[in-house]
């Protein structure tokens, strides 16, 4: 069934229709929340809260891209969570993994990567996520929506409620920052991601 029809039915209070929309978009919503928050539990909570909030405010959906409307709710909840984390920073007292040694626990380490750590870092995903985490919130959301979810600029502008020029500018600056950040992990990059001029360096 078309998502616009499902959205209309959901507007009329049909929870089943809304649940079908959830099934369509839950992976995307969770992925966006995870890349912005960089924490699976927080992303899970944010996704669930976003769907509840979306259903309660379904009357405010007035046609257009349902995906953009839903992603706006998700990103807003992520912003709230990030602000809450800043207000109440927490550090786990116990290691997240049982196998992890307390002496070498990641949670004890300095956030700034040391040269040895950078060399030992073998997980490219962690490196990229680390670079995304260091972006400003507004840049982060644009990068996640464009690069990871494949939204076009207009959809992103609709989602974050900013002009198209702002989206272009934020994305260009975010890419520039990511490029500089990723240079720290050049050794981790597979050959297909290396530039010819880099290899010659």
């Amino acid at each position, binding site marked *: 069934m078309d998502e616009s029809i499902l959205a209309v039915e959901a507007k009329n209070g049909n929870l089943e229709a809304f649940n079908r929309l*959830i*099934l369509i978009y839950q992976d995307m919503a969770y992925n966006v929340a995870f*890349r912005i928050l960089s924490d699976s539990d927080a992303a899970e909570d944010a996704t669930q809260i976003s769907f*509840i909030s979306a259903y*309660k405010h379904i009357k405010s959906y007035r046609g257009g891209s349902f995906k953009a409307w839903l992603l706006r709710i998700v990103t807003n909840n992520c912003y709230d969570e990030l602000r809450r984390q800043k207000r109440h920073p927490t550090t786990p007292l116990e290691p997240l993994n049982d196998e992890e040694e307390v002496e070498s626990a990641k949670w004890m380490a300095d956030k700034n990567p040391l040269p040895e750590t950078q060399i030992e870092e073998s997980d490219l995903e962690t490196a990229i996520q680390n670079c995304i985490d260091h972006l400003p919130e507004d840049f982060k959301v644009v990068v996640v929506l464009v690069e990871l979810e494949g939204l076009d600029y207009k959809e992103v502008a609709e989602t974050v409620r900013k002009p198209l020029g702002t989206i272009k500018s934020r994305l260009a600056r975010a890419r520039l920052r990511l490029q500089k950040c990723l240079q720290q992990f050049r050794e981790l990059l597979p050959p297909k991601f290396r530039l010819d001029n880099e290899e010659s360096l």
Partner: protein
Amino acid sequence: MKKRLSNRDWILISSYIDGQLSTRDTRKIEKRLQKDDSIKIAYQEILQTRRIIRSLPKRKAPRNFKLTPAMLAEHKPTLPIAFPIMSFASAVSAAMFILVFLFQNMPMTSKSMDFAEAPAMEAVQESNEDAAPIILWAPTAPGEVSGKGGGQEESFLAEPEMIVRQVEEEMDIIAEEAPAEAEMEVMADQFEEEYEGDSQEKMMDEAFVPEEESPPQAKKVEVENNDTPAILEDGEDQILTESSEEEINPILGILPTESEGKTLPPETIESTPIRQNIVLGWRIILPAGLLLIALSTGLGALIIWKKHRR
């Protein structure tokens, strides 16, 4: 050597990679890519960064996020009862403040406030200018409240102009009914003669002298009809009827009861502090209090809402 690019160049290259440029801008940037090595390197770098970011795996939802009616009920915000109460109090007091403020600043209202004060102050000013003594008078008829001005401050405040008129009318009556100065002297002589004769008879009979009833410096005049008011002359002498001690009241309700029978200098006449307090309360304290209540309750409601938002 690598040339430093402007922000606009980076934006153009980034948008070109995503295919978000207009045809004209696309042609421009393509021409520059062929000629300018710096642009070419920047293009390759951004393209590489884009490829790396897009290589991130997509995370799948760890569970199903479908909603149930129970979940929707659980997430209803439960704000404490103080929140609606404080919100309502804040709204009401704010509305009242606005109403009071507007009412005070309406042209008609401000004039009426001035009007309420003006006649009384005029009367005071007149008395000051003429330096006339305060006249106390006895009731015009038995059982009637004398003066109609003393002891009724509320009516005085409510209808100051009427009271001033009453005072003027009664002043006229006093002037008409009061005997002339010459007549008064004759009457006083007659009284002294009669009094001396009576006292001699009484001394003979009972040896009774009512010293306390006759103050040494006051001349007591017995008038045939008690309607004649007592008049203070030259600020020293006074003429009082026997019944005046209980019922006499000051003009304009200004003098306290202890000052009966005394002439007050014009400087002692002041506007009543009660009236000043009422005006002060109406003009300043009431709106300031309402504003304070509105702000404090509103702030309290905001704090409660912020605490329970999440």
